């Protein structure tokens, strides 16, 4: 794999606070890395150091083989960065600021026109091109920020909460866009939306208090969820009491959760002991006792549960 971003023992202290504390990872071409962590975990601080805005207290960042400390301009030429909150000059229009960035980045007239056109189309900016950024809604501001980060078609993308404030259609559109772009690039997105990680990330890093607590593919992370391969049954009240009694005692069941879904219907969730596949046993038990179920399915696991477990204050 072609490594585009390499971070080595990166740390940042603000006085007594260790905002980032010895973070190391590599991101290769084609990877979309989800960067997760509770508020204040150090996600934005890490991203700022990658973009060369903050100088690390210790450690190194290399983008496409260039060291951020030695060669900041070479790094920034290859990097698209969306800062947290998508700051942009409020008195400028999206058209004006895109033009400014294209000029600073040295795109010639032809490339400028073509790239700005592509961004306007992909991020649906046509309707607001002439409106001062100050007067745009939050979602449109974010989209302008994304357009600025993507304008020069960089190899490495660092996006701090790119879908924050977007409507569901736009979220979907941005995810699709990032998915399409991902083949030739290394992308890091920070997000608090865990379903996004499952939707577009090939890998997730969870940090807490400045340190990496997990670095794995989303499906590997799900293995650690108590709901990983849990069996969920939806059934009518008549069968409920029997099912509850029989299944609670079933070998391999670690616990049962119950949730009423209507007056006479409920959902039973059977949590398996580690490594146990419950579905066949449950089916057999139900059949043997002639219990009727409306629905039965296996859960993949819940990322929010894994997230909570890993980031709980130690």
């Amino acid at each position: 794999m072609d490594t585009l971003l390499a971070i080595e023992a990166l740390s940042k202290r603000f006085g007594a606070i260790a905002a980032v504390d010895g973070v190391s990872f590599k991101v290769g071409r084609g990877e979309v890395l989800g960067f997760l962590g509770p508020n204040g975990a150090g996600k934005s601080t890490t991203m700022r150091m990658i973009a060369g805005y903050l100088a690390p207290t210790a450690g190194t960042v290399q983008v496409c083989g260039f060291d951020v400390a030695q060669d900041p301009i070479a790094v920034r030429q290859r990097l698209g960065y969306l800062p947290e909150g998508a700051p942009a000059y409020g008195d400028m229009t999206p058209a004006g600021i895109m033009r400014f960035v294209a000029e600073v980045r040295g795109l010639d007239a032809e490339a400028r026109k073509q790239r700005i056109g592509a961004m306007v189309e992909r991020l649906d900016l046509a309707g607001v091109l002439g409106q001062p950024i100050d007067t745009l809604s939050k979602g449109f501001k974010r989209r302008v920020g994304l357009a600025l980060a993507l304008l020069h078609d960089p190899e490495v993308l660092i996006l701090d909460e790119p879908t924050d404030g977007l409507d569901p259609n736009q979220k979907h559109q941005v995810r699709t866009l990032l998915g399409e772009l991902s083949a030739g690039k290394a992308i890091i997105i920070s997000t608090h939306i865990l379903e996004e990680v499952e939707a577009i990330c090939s890998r997730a890093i969870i940090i807490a208090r400045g340190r990496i607590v997990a670095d794995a593919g989303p499906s590997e992370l799900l293995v650690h969820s108590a709901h990983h391969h849990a069996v969920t049954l939806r059934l009518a009240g008549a069968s409920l009491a029997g099912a509850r009694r029989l299944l609670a005692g079933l070998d391999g069941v670690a616990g049962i959760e119950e949730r009423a879904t209507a007056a006479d219907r409920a959902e039973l969730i059977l949590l398996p002991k580690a490594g146990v596949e419950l579905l066949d046993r449950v089916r057999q038990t139900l059949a043997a006792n002639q219990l009727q179920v409306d629905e039965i399915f296996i859960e993949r696991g819940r990322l929010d549960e894994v997230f909570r477990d890993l980031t709980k204050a130690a």
Partner: protein
Amino acid sequence: MRAIVAIIRRELAAYFGSPLAYVFIVIFLALAGSMTFFLGGWLERGRADLQGFFNWHPWLYLFLVPAVGMRLWAEERRTGTLEFLMTLPITTAQAVIGKFIAGWLFIGSALLLTFPMWLTVNYLGDPDNGVILASYLGSWLVAGAMLAISAAVSALTKNQVIAFVLAAAACFGFLMSGIEMVQAIFSSWAPEVLARTIADLSLLTTFNQIAEGVIDLRYLILFGSLIVTSLFINVAVVELKKGA
């Protein structure tokens, strides 16, 4: 260079796209004009020159230039756009120079708009246009020095009001350092050489010399070094305070 030009263009667009430009220009013209006529007694003097007009410039700049300079960096830091700007492929020096040049051109354009004064004296009499040209240059240099000082001060804080007050105070110091009162304070304890240097640093005495048509290389060096030093400090402060 390309980056500096892009920044200058953006900044100029920002000046002329905002009320600041018009407020600045109108106030500058109104005050410069009225001070010349009412306080300077231009008409009574009965002489066709612009001395009475240029004399007021340093005092107008004292609060107008910090008003231009205060937003240069303080606003970028407050709104977070500094992070956007400083993660583009430009050096801090390019950003500092671009912003400074744009501000200086902007003030220069306000200065140019006083050309009716020049037309008037030429209509009324036969002034020494060389001296007038020198005065315009001197006035613009004073504005440039004050702008560079204000910009450096602006990088110290997120708060524009603080930036304004500190910048005005710093400009006042540089303006007055040749005035006898200030000199007396220094000469009471500082060695002769230092006292002389401080006197030489005075923007006001230098400007007055230039406005009388004396253009000495030393004066240009004074303005040049003041501007360059301030911009150096500006770069250092931006770098230092970037992430704080």
